[in-house]
């Protein structure tokens, strides 16, 4: 008999209700943008999904002015309890339209429907509910007796979690009484625009939320706008540094959530099967397009061979393919540019003498895909150990002692996240105290919860999102 296989189980693309064209959302209405329209592509097929109007510099001015008016006239003076009602309403509608949003996110981004359905959209809804609850309790957040909003927030977000990142900015900004101008990523603008539609449906006053699609120039105009009081940026370290330079000395507030090269440290006394799961999840979740991805595996030398064997066997079971298929584990690479970069970085790994292993899984004939890849024999000096690849490529290094593990984990300019795997609590805490990373997961990885602050330091940025402390970035205290 033939082996048992899983028949294709695709979610229907029509659920996304993709419109032929989308427009910027300014001052409570969808308007024609003055910029050159862009075409957003489904990376799994490389077919155009929709045409999207983009913002001109004048549109940025209009959006910031609308946000300013809304801050001064409606949203700023409104009581926290009233603001909360809007946020709860948006959260509920988002949850109600979760299936549509999940499919749309998968079409526009390339991530598997299993993740957009089970992680992106529910986590976005949770973030809104969490912050809605804070809106009337800010005085009790322990930040000060009378925290006040900052004013107008300019937010620029990446393409890896388009809806979730939009919500990570919008929810705290609005809960704390600020208004916002949001620039979604050039390749993934659609869910943020549907979110704007949801906000309008929920009756959010005009100007409180503005969404301006466009490329880097629009992001730059938003981040550099003189009437923006605070900039929240998630994206690459290079762009983050540029924004930092522009805002230096202006008195405008800034939070940056940038790149990472996280270490997943596996000690020899780890729960091995679950560590394998965590390492797989750490690097192959969202095709490795995750700033906090566990892209460096540091495994204790005494178990390196066995762990590698278990890891490869597990990776072989990952199903790469149609992102809309409910059984797909690894979807499409978001853009041709990103795929080229991953290919280049992997070639650099080969050239520098690391040993490449690739899953034998079949890849679709068309679309942008890269197979799960593991480099062993990686040294600290190699590019695959130092540079963020932002793709499904894991670099494996070994260590002998906990001190060496910590030294290797910290031998990076980044400091966003880290994973520690051991059944021994004291060793986990000893390591966590010494690893320089904003987020440390112990015996788990890539867990996101609105109550847990997220963010890095050094070249991974500064400021925290989520949790009580995340409110601080949007308040005068």
């Amino acid at each position, binding site marked *: 008999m033939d082996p*048992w*296989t899983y028949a294709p189980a695709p979610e229907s693309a029509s659920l996304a209700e993709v419109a032929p064209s989308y427009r910027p959302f300014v001052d409570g209405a969808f308007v024609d943008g003055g910029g050159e329209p862009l075409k957003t592509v489904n990376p799994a097929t490389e077919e155009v999904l929709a045409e999207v109007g983009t913002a001109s510099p004048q549109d940025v001015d209009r959006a910031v002015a609308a946000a300013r008016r809304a801050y001064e006239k409606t949203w700023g003076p409104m009581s926290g309890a009233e603001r909360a009602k809007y946020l709860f309403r948006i959260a509920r509608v988002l949850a109600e339209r979760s299936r549509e949003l999940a499919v749309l996110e998968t079409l526009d981004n390339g991530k598997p429907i299993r993740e957009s359905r089970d992680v992106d959209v529910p986590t976005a809804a949770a973030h809104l509910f969490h912050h809605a609850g804070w809106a009337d309790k800010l005085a009790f957040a322990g930040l000060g007796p009378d925290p006040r909003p900052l004013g107008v927030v300019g937010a620029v977000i990446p393409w890896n979690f388009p809806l979730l990142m939009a919500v990570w900015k919008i929810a705290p900004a609005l809960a704390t009484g600020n208004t916002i101008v949001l620039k979604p990523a050039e390749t993934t603008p659609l869910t943020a625009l549907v979110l704007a539609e949801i906000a309008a449906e929920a009756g959010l006053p005009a100007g409180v939320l503005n969404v301006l699609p466009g490329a880097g120039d629009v992001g730059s105009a938003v981040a550099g706008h003189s009437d923006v009081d605070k900039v929240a940026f998630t994206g690459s370290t290079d762009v983050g540094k540029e924004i930092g330079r522009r805002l230096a000395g202006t008195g405008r507030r800034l939070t940056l959530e940038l790149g990472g090269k996280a270490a997943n440290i596996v000690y020899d006394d780890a*729960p091995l099967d679950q560590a394998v799961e965590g390492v797989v999840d750490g690097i192959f979740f969202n095709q490795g397009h995750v700033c906090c991805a566990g892209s460096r595996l540091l495994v204790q030398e005494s178990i390196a061979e066995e762990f590698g*064997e278990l890891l490869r066997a597990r990776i072989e079971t990952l199903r790469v393919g149609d992102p809309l298929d409910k*059984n797909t584990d690894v979807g499409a690479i978001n853009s041709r540019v990103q795929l080229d970069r991953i290919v280049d970085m992997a070639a650099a790994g080969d050239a520098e003498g690391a040993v490449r292993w690739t899953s034998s899984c079949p890849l679709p004939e068309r679309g942008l895909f890269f197979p799960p890849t593991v480099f062993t024999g990686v040294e600290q000096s190699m590019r695959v150990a130092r540079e963020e690849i932002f793709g499904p490529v894991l670099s494996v290094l070994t260590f002998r002692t906990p001190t060496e593990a910590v030294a290797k984990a910290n031998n990076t300019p980044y400091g966003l996240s880290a994973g520690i795997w051991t059944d021994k609590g004291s060793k986990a805490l000893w390591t966590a105290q010494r690893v320089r990373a904003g987020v440390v997961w112990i015996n788990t990885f890539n867990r996101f919860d609105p109550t847990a602050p997220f963010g890095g330091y050094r070249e991974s940025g500064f400021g925290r999102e989520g949790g009580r402390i995340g409110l601080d970035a949007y308040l005068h205290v």
Partner: protein
Amino acid sequence: MTRTVPAPRATAESTGGFAGVGRDEASLRRFLHGLPGVDQVGLERRAATLATRSIKKGSKLRAIDLAISMIDLTTLEGSDTPGKVASLCAQARRPDAEYPDVPPVAAVCLYPDLVRGAVERLAGSGVQVAAVATAFPSGRSSRAVKLADTALAVEGGAGEIDMVIDRGAFLTGRYGKIHDEIVAVRQACGNAHLKVILETGELAGYDDVRRASWLALLAGGDVIKTSTGKISPAATLPVVQVMLQAVRDWHRLTGEYRGVKAAGGIRSTKDAIRHLVAVNEVAGPAWLTADLFRFGASSLLADLLRQRRTQVEGHYAGTEYIGAS
């Protein structure tokens, strides 16, 4: 392609690189407590993810037939009678009278005194007769009684023996007692296959499930089985996952195939398919055979047949239209 997997036969000597581990209490304890731990959160998260697999159309029909062929159709009641056994055997041979293409189940599972009648009724069908033994379900008796219980079943013609481990001994750390008991029962089995019931619902967590699994494998059990069906929780996806990891690792380290039986609590087709997904992805496709994976169940078959008719006929069939034992 026909996949031929060597039948899971084990002898007391064939313990791969683990010869000597069971020689005394201390080395057993060192070995079992040296196994990697199981992290509950990660284990349950993986089980939840596996449960999201969407099995449709041809894959579902195939899974249903596979599941039917893996069932140990079970009745373990004080009220069992020869008549009840006869009707169970009839259904085991031909689960759905209207669809002769439905495969027979793997075995019927009974108390030892009912074995002889079942063997007669199932002669030539390929359906095995399995008997619970060793003071099932509690295992609370002397070794002599347990061995006599086993002998009764084997003499009746049982091809498979489902023994229980002494959970009291396990919980007090007397691994050697359990090991020796399994070895003794294994000998009393003769040619019959031995399934070792761990009764995971009475053990203290997933680390214990892993240790008990290895203990049974070391002592020569052909199959490790979750539960008696008399204790809840019985078979759960995380528990079965740990046991599948154990037989996978056993194969990785010794080259031998051993099996897993998920018994108790699996009543729906959906549940059964989730287990098959776990078998496929945790142990591997080689375990997708009745030689290496079984469902111990009484009511599961009825739901599988109903879902099978739904797949074939395109609409739901009422239970009253399907003959059940």
